[in-house]
């Protein structure tokens, strides 16, 4: 299924995650991604994985990047989403404009600066050289730079002038932070970009999101399997009880099948990519619930490292789609008719 280069990238990411994330995943949830970790993610080449080499990127293929996200997500879904935000959502947005690309992309790839962008709707207006308005859901609200559309075709880069109105109590990805902010700033750079500025930026990265969710599902399964082989109850290992063993078996099969499906898709805008995203998030949610249940009372505590998959998978579902809108779009691709009722 994977080339030698892709397998090498996967093992690099796996080693990185075990070395750099396994022990600090809980800290990331509480304190966020610090400059040191950002710099390590950059040094490993993850922040510029698919970006052109002229900006310091690695020019990797999408499959390699997905494998990186999948491996990172097994230990820290927050870090995986951070990489996706920096690399794909900001980096790949900026390279649409040569001037923006030359000014900033190298700094993203090297981890020199951190970036963010609104996940959903924003209400920003250009007024002379200033940009003003509000963004209801902004991850990484303390990032160095903010990039956003100010009107359908004007992309704006903002530095400073972002004030937190309210920090949301977000279900998942707590290490990123999520705030309602007001913006009153000088537009650092403007660009006329001829693209459809979809309000749901994660729509453009269905396969990458699917890889993150798949990593969560796999990690949840692996932890449930490990625990079931070490915990005893009623004089037996948990793994010796048929209902649990059969359930884990069923989920192992589902995860393997989904992995093959995800990596067989080439077009990120296709029906299959959308389906893979929805399926993988659903599987991550169900598997993490089972994993938490297998761990019993221990699973309910942060230090066990299982409950975050339960929270993050549900939060991912909300962050990447509004369910109905996404399904309408995919249904049209499937049926050729818009389900309106």
């Amino acid at each position, binding site marked *: 299924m994977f080339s030698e280069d892709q397998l090498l990238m996967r093992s690099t990411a796996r080693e990185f995650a075990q070395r750099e994330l396994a022990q600090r995943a809980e800290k990331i949830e509480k304190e966020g991604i610090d400059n040191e970790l950002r710099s390590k993610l950059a040094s490993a080449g993850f922040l510029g994985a698919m970006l052109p080499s002229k900006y310091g990127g690695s020019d990797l293929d999408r499959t390699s990047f997905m494998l990186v996200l999948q491996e990172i997500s097994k230990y820290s879904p927050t870090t995986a989403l951070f990489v996706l935000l920096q690399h794909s959502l900001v980096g790949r947005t900026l390279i649409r404009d040569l001037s923006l690309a030359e000014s900033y992309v190298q700094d993203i790839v090297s981890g020199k600066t951190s970036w963010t962008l609104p996940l*959903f709707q924003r209400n920003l207006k250009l007024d002379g050289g200033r940009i003003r308005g509000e963004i209801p859901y902004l991850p990484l609200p303390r990032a160095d730079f903010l990039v956003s559309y100010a009107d359908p075709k004007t992309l704006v880069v903002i530095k400073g002038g972002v004030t937190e109105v309210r920090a949301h109590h*977000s279900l998942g990805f707590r290490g990123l932070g999520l705030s309602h902010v007001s913006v009153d700033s000088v537009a650092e750079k403007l660009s006329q970009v001829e693209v459809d500025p979809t309000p749901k930026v994660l729509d453009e990265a269905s396969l990458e999101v699917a890889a993150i969710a798949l990593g969560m599902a796999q990690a949840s399964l692996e932890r449930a399997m490990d625990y079931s082989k070490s915990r005893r109850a*009623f004089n037996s290992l948990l793994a010796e009880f048929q209902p649990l063993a059969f359930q884990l078996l069923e989920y192992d099969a589902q995860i393997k099948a989904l992995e093959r499906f995800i990596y067989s898709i080439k077009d990120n805008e296709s029906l299959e990519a959308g389906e893979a995203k929805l399926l993988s998030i659903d599987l991550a949610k169900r598997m993490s*619930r089972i994993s938490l249940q297998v761990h019993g*009372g221990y699973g*309910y505590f942060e230090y066990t490292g299982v*409950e975050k998959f*339960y929270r993050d998978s*549900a939060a991912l579902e909300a962050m990447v*789609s509004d369910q109905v809108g996404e399904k309408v779009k995919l249904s049209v691709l499937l049926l050729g008719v818009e389900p309106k009722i």
Partner: protein
Amino acid sequence: MSLIPENLDELRGKAREFALREFTEEKIRKYEEEEKYPEEIRRKAFEAGFLDMSNPWGMLVAMEEFCRVDPGLGISALSAAFGSEVIMLFGSDYLKKKYLEPVLKGEKISGFAVTEPSAGSDVAGIRSRLERRGKGYVLNGEKIFITNGTVANHFYVLARSSPPPSPEKRHHGMTMVVVESSWPGFEAEQMKGKLGMRATSTAHLKFRDVEVPEENVIGEEGKGFYYVMTFFDISRIHVATQALGIAQGALDMFTEYIINNGLNNRETYQFALADMATRVHAARLLTYDAADRLFKFAPDPVKTSMAKYFAGETAVYVTDLALKYTGMQGVTSKLEKFYRDAKIEEIWEGTNEVEKLVISRMLLKKR
């Protein structure tokens, strides 16, 4: 035949009014963030008459309405007498006077200490030891995930007092005793960082050579396991009610979301709402049916386990579905807290798996 007593409306109304007034957004977040037991709310709930063990339907409805507004505060407010049913049912007059009365007067808080680091669902697998010494006993061992652990004045503790007669009879030789938290050798450490229910006190208890007087044995020596199982027939109904309240609360929020966003005519939302409401109603019928049997002194463990299992699953199902269709608004609102709170309902007081075992084994035994 209605399983829901008709005279509950007034009690329900009072409980809802209390919860809406006292469980403010600010307090909910404060106790959640600080992971602090809401003593002021417990006191107010007691003074308002909600912790009245002589009125079991009243307590049940109050639990449902409280959890509908906020599960963490609701459970803390109404669980101050946690486990005290074992004294009521099996304790001596001395124990009732010394430990039950102050709890019923709202002066003291109790806790029920059974689960251990290596034994949760498998109650008979506990390792705490109660050994005879002189006229009394000495208790050694650890308990984990204990509700009211850092705030209770005394605990009803299960420990092994004699070796099991055979591997099949591991549940023999266990004794329940009352242990005061002020006694030498007792230690309670709060367990922080729960997924949800952060306003409830959860602790890791340690007993090191704790001297327990003979008169603090509950009922008969060696019968502790049966007392625990009897208690579960009561407590599981309360847990089912917690779950029911959570599910109803999530359903309320989802309904409000549909109305506020003008989605009344969209079938996706209509179907989700119907699905949730049907399950909540079924959970309520199962729970009230089990409660009705218990309150008529004819508890049915099969019906109780069915209620606890189904209501817990319903709480998780409804909060999940509500989140799914409310998007970012849902995951950043009170609904996200309900989603986190709900999951414990499938675990504590007997996991779903244990409830299924109770149901199937008892059904097969009857044949």
